[in-house]
């Protein structure tokens, strides 16, 4: 044992050299900012004078009375309810289609992945141009089909679905790759055995693919909801300006960004951030619990 003791000491020193900077970084750049943010959110602190007084939960109460906050919250849910199921279903369909595509498989994977690697800013301009009411591609196609042209991003009803369509195009390659990894993990012999027993395509999908794909579906669903509730990029690049027509595309993160960095109401912006954090946490825990309960036999 005597020869192991200096070795153990050396190990502890090595661990300390790694762990101390790690802890310092997490305290300085994460834990302390969270505490600080909370203190800002219960004060009337002003960036320019750098003075602030404790005001209790006033900023939180203000959010619940603020109609723009309410509409941002509803828009955020609307975005999640549209984008998550669409993304899930399209990725599942594409994943199964690409898997069956044989030698063209890798070509398809590259094509669907292309929008994922291109920058959000660049594709955002591109899609604004496609949606452009007078000269855009979509309205030209409608006119060619003798259908009435639409206002797309300028229409209160269509603005959010347009953002969702763009976000789906941009992100579907990512979800599809994850879906395909899940599909590849299913043992082929299950299908062969079921086919010998006379199962049809739908039965194979319903009783083999779906149950064995559950971990992948859970992953996509839970990370999808978290991502959708924090959506910023697609909204920002599609509808710059005051949150789209009639505030229809203003989401929580966008409203928080505007409150803090554009109208300099830092305490209010921080309070919005904590409220959205609480909502995301609650929804994530509920989802995990519901999905786990449903999937135990």
């Amino acid at each position, binding site marked *: 044992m005597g020869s192991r003791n200096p070795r153990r000491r*050396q*190990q502890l020193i090595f661990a*300390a050299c790694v762990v101390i900077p790690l802890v310092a970084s997490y305290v300085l750049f*994460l834990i302390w900012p969270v505490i600080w943010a909370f203190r800002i959110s219960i004060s009337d602190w002003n960036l320019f004078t750098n003075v602030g007084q404790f005001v209790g939960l006033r900023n939180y109460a203000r959010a619940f009375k603020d109609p723009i906050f309410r509409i941002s919250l509803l828009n955020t849910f609307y975005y999640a309810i549209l984008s998550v199921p669409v993304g899930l279903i399209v990725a599942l369909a594409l994943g199964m289609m690409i898997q069956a595509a044989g030698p063209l498989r890798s070509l398809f994977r*590259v094509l669907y*992945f292309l929008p994922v690697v291109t920058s959000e*800013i660049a594709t955002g301009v591109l899609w604004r141009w496609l949606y452009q009411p007078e000269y855009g591609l979509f309205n030209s196609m409608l006119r060619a089909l003798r259908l009435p042209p639409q206002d797309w991003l300028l229409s209160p009803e269509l603005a959010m679905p347009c953002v969702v369509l763009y976000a789906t195009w941009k992100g579907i390659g990512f979800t599809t790759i994850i879906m395909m990894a899940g599909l590849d993990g299913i043992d082929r012999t299950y299908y062969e055995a079921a086919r010998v027993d006379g199962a049809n395509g739908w039965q194979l999908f319903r009783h083999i693919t779906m149950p064995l794909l559950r*971990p992948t579906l859970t992953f996509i669903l839970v990370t999808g909801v978290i991502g959708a509730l924090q959506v910023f990029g697609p909204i920002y690049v599609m509808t710059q300006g005051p949150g789209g027509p009639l505030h229809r595309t203003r989401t929580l993160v966008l409203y928080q960004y505007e409150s803090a*960095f554009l109208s300099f109401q830092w305490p209010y912006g921080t309070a919005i951030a904590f409220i959205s954090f609480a909502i995301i946490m609650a929804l994530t825990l509920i989802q995990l619990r519901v999905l786990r309960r449903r999937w135990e036999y």
Partner: protein
Amino acid sequence: MAMVLPFYWMVLTSLKSKSEIVRIPPSFFPQSLTLGNYAEAWERLDFPILLRNSAFLAFTMTVTILFSSSLVGYVFAKIEFPGRELLFVVILSSMMIPFNVVMIPLFLLIVKLHWANTYWGIIIPGIFSSFGIFLMRQVMGTIPDELLDAARIDGASEFRIFGSVALPLSTSPLAALGTLTFMGQWDAFLWPLIVLTRDDLFTLPVGLALFNNRFYTEYGPLLAGATISVIPILIVFLSAQRLFIESVALQGMKL
């Protein structure tokens, strides 16, 4: 193909003349192509500088995160020390905290440290990646202890064992983590936009975003700028597409 048609439209529009862009109905095969929009975009945006800044930041961040993640992952997987489990739980749960909660105080901290308008303000808070640490701990955990003990008996230091035994055995997860990190950093937009206000420091997404705000409806130069900005990452992606796709597949395995 619905996926590539928008890209075709982007390149096509950027090559059209100003009068042809606003023609109704738009032409799918224009009679004349011009590079005028590219000249205009190139004049208004300093692409070589933007590209250099983006490449520098994305490369530095990727190397830093690969090094820190594998080192911390190794320590968490292979060395016992007091408080190890608790600390790991803290790191895992920190992945749940949305960036927008800490964004405001972090910005104030960066200003206080005089790191606003410097790359330190972006690099230093990003040294450690919770996802990277989590991934590399799982990877390092699969390395058999016997291999490490053999090196210890030979008298190698812990850092040497990490560098010459553990690292070479984790090259493919490291390649995947590197690809994911590079992809994320290359497109990083919100934090650089907040920290950097000097245009000689801007990255490609920041420069392009401000260019968009300024010339909101001049689609010719805007789309030319977008096309130029897409080319470098497209070359990287097409030359290493297997690596990109396998890296994303690996991320799905993390739950």
